[in-house]
């Protein structure tokens, strides 16, 4: 990669889930969508109008005390690989490759905050919490929202709440995603039943990518179905309750597996270990699926010499732009990237051992 990087060093030295201590629930991301009165929404803004709004918003946000040394990165100043790095770091749903002049990103030294300016809404904020400190995370986001709102009037109606360019986000404009690692519920075919019985009506499940029901890396993302018609407190309470119940169901299966090891599961973990150790070409999806079993193997005591936080780190670093940074070279050739990914994984897993 190029020597000069506009992203803060913390983005390269830490991955977002580094500080997590709960292997079943590595993180929660909080999102707030806001637009500002007197401006067309981003899809209708001219480049000049969008750039003016970016200037105004960044002026306000760069002074916020809740952010640590915030910086504003304009879309036109970022290289494609840097945009992809941000996309991977924040596990975003939509790529930033199409972002242009008049759009920008605000990040800070914590590497847990992302402000998207004029991408879907005038402002979309994301805050990652990996310590299960919801009140703190929500309080930071809410304080930032209030501070911005006191400088720029937000688009709001009493019926639809905060007005967003996607009507499915209007109301509170709050989306919350809980990342749950539930391999045993998925492998035992009990996930659907658990979702039916344990999750609230206001909660839905999705996956990291791909069609519904295919949970890449055995990650189930619980998120709020409604943004309109509920208070922020109700949204957070229902989600927390559902996520807690699902992780407990997974924990019950793990406890059982610790007492009486299931050969089918042990075989899955062992095969995944072998795949990662011995492959010379690895795709992201197969790495994520295999890492999931390694993560489970560590928790069950079947794999030694490797920590859960290391797997969390590898989970992010095995993605294309991160791999480019690790090896100091950018490549869009899938074969080269797959090879580098396998080399990286060999290196990370070299001191680990599967216990018979």
């Amino acid at each position: 990669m190029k020597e000069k990087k506009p992203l803060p060093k913390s983005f390269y030295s830490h991955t977002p889930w580094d500080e997590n201590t709960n292997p079943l629930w590595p993180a929660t991301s909080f999102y707030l969508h806001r637009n500002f009165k007197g401006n067309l929404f981003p899809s209708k803004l001219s480049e000049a109008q969008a750039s003016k709004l970016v200037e105004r918003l960044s002026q306000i946000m760069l002074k916020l005390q809740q952010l640590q040394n915030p910086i504003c990165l304009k879309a036109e100043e970022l290289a494609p690989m840097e945009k992809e790095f941000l996309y991977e770091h924040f596990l975003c749903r939509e790529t930033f490759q199409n972002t242009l002049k008049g759009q920008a990103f605000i990040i800070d030294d914590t590497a847990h905050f992302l402000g998207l300016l004029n991408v879907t809404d005038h402002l979309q904020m994301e805050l990652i919490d990996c310590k299960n400190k919801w009140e703190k995370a929500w309080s930071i986001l809410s304080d930032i929202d209030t501070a911005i709102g006191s400088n720029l009037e937000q688009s709001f109606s009493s019926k639809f709440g905060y007005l967003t360019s996607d009507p499915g986000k209007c109301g509170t404009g709050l989306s919350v995603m809980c990342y749950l690692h539930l391999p045993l519920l998925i492998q035992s075919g009990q996930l659907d039943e658990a979702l039916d019985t344990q999750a609230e009506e206001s909660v839905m499940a999705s996956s990291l990518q791909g069609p519904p029901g295919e949970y890449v890396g055995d990650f189930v993302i619980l998120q709020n179905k409604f943004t309109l018609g509920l208070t922020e407190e109700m949204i957070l309470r229902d989600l927390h309750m559902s996520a807690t119940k699902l992780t407990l169901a997974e924990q019950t299966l793990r406890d059982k597996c610790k007492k009486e090891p299931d050969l089918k599961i042990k075989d899955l973990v062992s095969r995944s270990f072998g795949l990662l150790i011995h492959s010379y070409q690895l795709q992201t999806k197969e790495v994520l699926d295999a890492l999931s079993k390694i993560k489970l193997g560590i928790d069950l005591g079947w794999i030694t010499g490797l920590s859960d936080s290391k797997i969390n780190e590898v989970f992010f670093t095995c993605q294309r732009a991160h791999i480019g940074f690790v090896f100091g070279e950018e490549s869009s050739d899938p074969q080269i990237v797959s090879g580098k990914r396998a080399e990286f994984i060999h290196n990370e897993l070299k001191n680990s051992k599967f216990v018979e």
Partner: protein
Amino acid sequence: MPDRPVECSHCKKTIAVIYKEIIEDVVSCTHMCAECPILMQKMTGELSDTKRKRSETEMGLCCGSCGTTLESIQTGNPLGCSECYSVFGDLIMQELVSLDMIPTRLQKGLGRKKSQPLHIGKSPSTPAQIPSSSRLTALNEALNDALKKENYEQAAWLRDQIKDLMDGPNERKKTSP
């Protein structure tokens, strides 16, 4: 992870159909939602009856402030401005109800003439605060559930979590002057 689209290529809703089209030697593959108007057009050459009737009656509806059209919204394009919520308010509400994006208890009241005001969360003038009791309620519910199922290991773990949460503010009180 940009390998596969998560949403309908046209409407940005959840994928339900993978539509493959073969024209001469070229195979194109599009991911679509079940109700995608583009899919309907591709399959039948026209919009569905209900959609067509709606289109006919609402043809020409357009936001005077940003120029966003009804057709544009129906194909999943974003709204163009705050005014769109006034112009297309009824349609937006119908769409949210059909997509099950409004809590069931509130859906019943929407058909009435004097429907209740919908937004329930905070407003710009009243900042939201999430008390720690919110998480406490969630943990207590889970604890009751664990006890009902006689899962005492889980119950013990939940009790610890509740205790930690309740001790938190006290510890801060102890250390504060």
